[in-house]
């Protein structure tokens, strides 16, 4: 039940931050393409923030597309599903881009698969209602999100049903759909917003119904006018407001987009829920619509395979559990001058040393940089110029935090609010001395002793 569009009062921007080269041109105009199923997929049993799943299938079991194959215990977890029809292989262990080792269930792709067009039509295509959604009860929507294994597709992979479950103590009044996609290079959300705005809007209405939000805002950066146009057309008459944000990194972060779009400040260590907001990525929204209205579990996602080091940059609708190598091969392979393969975007993504790694629910892109993109710079002494302070979106003093982390001066680390750091990388991007500020602070955050 969405009220008439009330003007979201945010300024459309946030203080500090940076504007790195956008470089979205590689894949921005390439329509989403369906990748043929690989010979085998490997479904990690932990693809989200929270408790890992236990397998529900045995070796040699035949599974169908979308069948639940792993289920976790507790509230903050999400089940995993087969992304192809086929036979279950011997469970093994794989390493995710973030370095975590997780159990996986391999599935050998069987002969009976949906064609690419059928798959696209069933997940995203066709007509999506924007009215009559009241038939779904809020509890039902949250429950369906859980059963479908939905997690935030923006990257953090937080289980969606947790956000959608109502909490009497902390009521939600606004659902903020995040279509900022502030990382350079990445275009998966952009293509989705242009090609499939209808399921995004429908999913947002469903999420608003589940959370009890009466205001629904979609935030998109002003470097994506086509996406804004497309969403506005799809949202006509629904009360959903598409609000244009300034293009500024890291606009896609919750702590930046909420103040920018709604003029509310999320307390440090708190959640958007503390200020009555639920933030959801546009891709998650489309997946929610497919789950509630079509009974689709989360088996595929759009991944940008982009950068100067890839032969044919594309936006690929890929089965979860494919390997990075499958996707890179589908995009023509690496160019000879490719120098770094990154899971995610260049600002916060993880560099890979092995392409035989699994695409998970949180994989938003694969960015391949060349030698020319990577400037070899030597770390020199900090001259305390304060550039890192000038760009930190959270108003921290990165150079002090890095110093404190390097020498394990935990008093200083606390005095300068180390744990507030979101690791966005603005400081390291501008540092004239090329100090690995983010790396040091990340290390410090991991080592900071409990009080």
């Amino acid at each position, binding site marked *: 039940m969405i009220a008439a569009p009330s003007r979201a009062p945010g300024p459309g921007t946030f203080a500090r931050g940076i504007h790195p080269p956008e470089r979205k041109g590689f894949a921005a105009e390439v329509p989403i393409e369906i990748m043929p199923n690989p010979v085998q997929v490997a479904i990690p049993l932990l693809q989200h923030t929270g408790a890992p799943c236990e397998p529900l299938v045995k070796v040699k079991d035949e599974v169908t597309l979308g069948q639940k194959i792993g289920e976790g215990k507790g509230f903050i977890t999400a089940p995993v599903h087969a992304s192809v029809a086929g036979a279950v292989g011997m469970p093994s262990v794989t390493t995710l881009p973030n370095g975590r080792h997780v159990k996986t269930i391999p599935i050998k792709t069987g002969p009976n698969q949906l064609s690419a067009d059928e798959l696209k039509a069933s997940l995203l295509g066709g007509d999506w209602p924007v009215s009559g959604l009241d038939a779904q009860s809020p509890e039902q929507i949250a429950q369906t999100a859980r059963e479908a294994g939905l997690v935030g597709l923006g990257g953090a992979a937080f289980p969606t049903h947790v956000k959608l479950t109502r909490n009497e103590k902390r009521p939600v009044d606004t659902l903020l759909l995040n279509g900022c996609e502030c990382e350079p290079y990445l275009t998966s959300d952009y293509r989705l917003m242009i090609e499939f705005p209808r399921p995004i809007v429908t999913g947002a209405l469903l999420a608003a119904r589940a959370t009890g939000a009466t205001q629904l805002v979609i935030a998109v950066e002003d470097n994506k006018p086509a996406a804004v146009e497309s969403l506005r057309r799809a949202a006509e008459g629904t009360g959903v407001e598409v609000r244009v944000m300034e293009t500024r990194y890291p606009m896609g972060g919750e702590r930046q987009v909420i103040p920018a779009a709604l003029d509310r400040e999320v307390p440090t260590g708190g959640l958007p829920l503390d200020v009555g907001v639920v933030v959801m990525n546009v891709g998650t929204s489309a997946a929610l619509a497919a789950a509630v209205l079509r009974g689709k579990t989360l088996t595929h996602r759009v991944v940008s395979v982009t950068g100067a080091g890839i032969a044919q940059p594309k936006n690929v609708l890929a089965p979860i559990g494919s390997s990075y190598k499958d996707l890179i091969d589908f995009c023509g392979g690496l160019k000879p001058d490719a120098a770094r393969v990154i899971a995610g975007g260049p600002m916060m993504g993880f560099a890979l040393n092995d392409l*035989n790694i699994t695409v998970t629910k949180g994989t938003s892109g694969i960015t391949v940089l060349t030698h020319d993109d990577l400037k070899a710079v030597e770390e020199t002494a900090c001259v305390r110029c304060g550039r890192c302070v000038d760009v930190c979106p959270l108003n921290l003093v990165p150079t002090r935090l890095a110093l404190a982390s390097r020498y394990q001066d935990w008093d200083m680390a606390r005095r300068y609010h180390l744990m507030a750091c979101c690791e966005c990388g603005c400081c390291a991007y501008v540092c004239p001395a090329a100090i690995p500020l983010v790396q040091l602070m990340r290390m410090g955050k991991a080592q900071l002793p409990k009080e």
Partner: protein
Amino acid sequence: MDTATSTTEAPAVMPSPAIHIAPAPHLFGGALTTQRMMFDVLLALVPVLVAALWQFRLYAVIQLAICMVSAVAAEALFTAMRKKPILVRDGSALVTGAILAFSLPAKAPWYAGAVGSFVAIGIGKVIFGGVGQNIFNPAMLGRAFAMIAFPAALGASAYVVPDSPIDGLTHATPLTALKMLGQSTGLLPLFLGATNGSIGETSALACLLGGAYLCLRRTASWEIPAGVIAATAVIGLLVQWFSPVAGWTVLHELCGGALLFGAFFIATDPVSSPLAPRGKFVFGLGVGALVMLIRKLSGYPEGVMFSVLIMNALVPLINRATIPTPVGGPVPAKKAA
């Protein structure tokens, strides 16, 4: 069966181009490096140099040459003594030498500049651990040493050369004239630099031009000169109100002496000034206030050097008192764990 396929296969499937790993972020702005910052300062000093050449002719060149050569030699010598790589490449010694030279009288003896440079680099910088580690502005430390070691060569009287063919050198500096004789100097000569003084300080126009470039490039933080000028202006107004001197206004106060040179080129040394914007402004205010205190209440006609050094000593305190509050407030106690 395909036992543990993904783990055993892993090393074999390296792609043909060598890919390597590194922590994020993988993009680097690269607009400003330490070397580039130093180059910016040298570039911003060009208008100052032009003004100095116009007013002091060859003396400016001689002082610059003495100080810059000495500074680079000192850097090479002292870093070699510490068995550290010689870091002359980053240009910081050149900047220190240039700033020191511009703060000397035109006819200062050669050993004043040379000793000042060696002290600036040796005791002012390298002894603390090199670039980025020093507490005090090296150039000002070197100048203070030289001034105490050779008072006759750098005191107020050293500026005046009665029989000099260069007109500017035959008069007392504007601030000395004001202090000792109660004489005011015209605003236009102060603005353009047609007065006596340290070779880099005379022209307000040149300092403003170079300073504007530094602030626009963000090599210098505008908060510091803003603080210096604000404090000087406010105190200057009060002084003008309570003990007026005919023909001497706040604008004279700002354009006279080393105030603008100090505000834009000396106090803005990033290493020895605070980190956060609020701290930088406070630092600037302190420098401006101390300059006025020394100018009006001490035996010295000018006080930029001592003001900067005193405020340098207070930087750790300022930093501690001006830690910015994070967006969203401080980390709550339980999360700080």
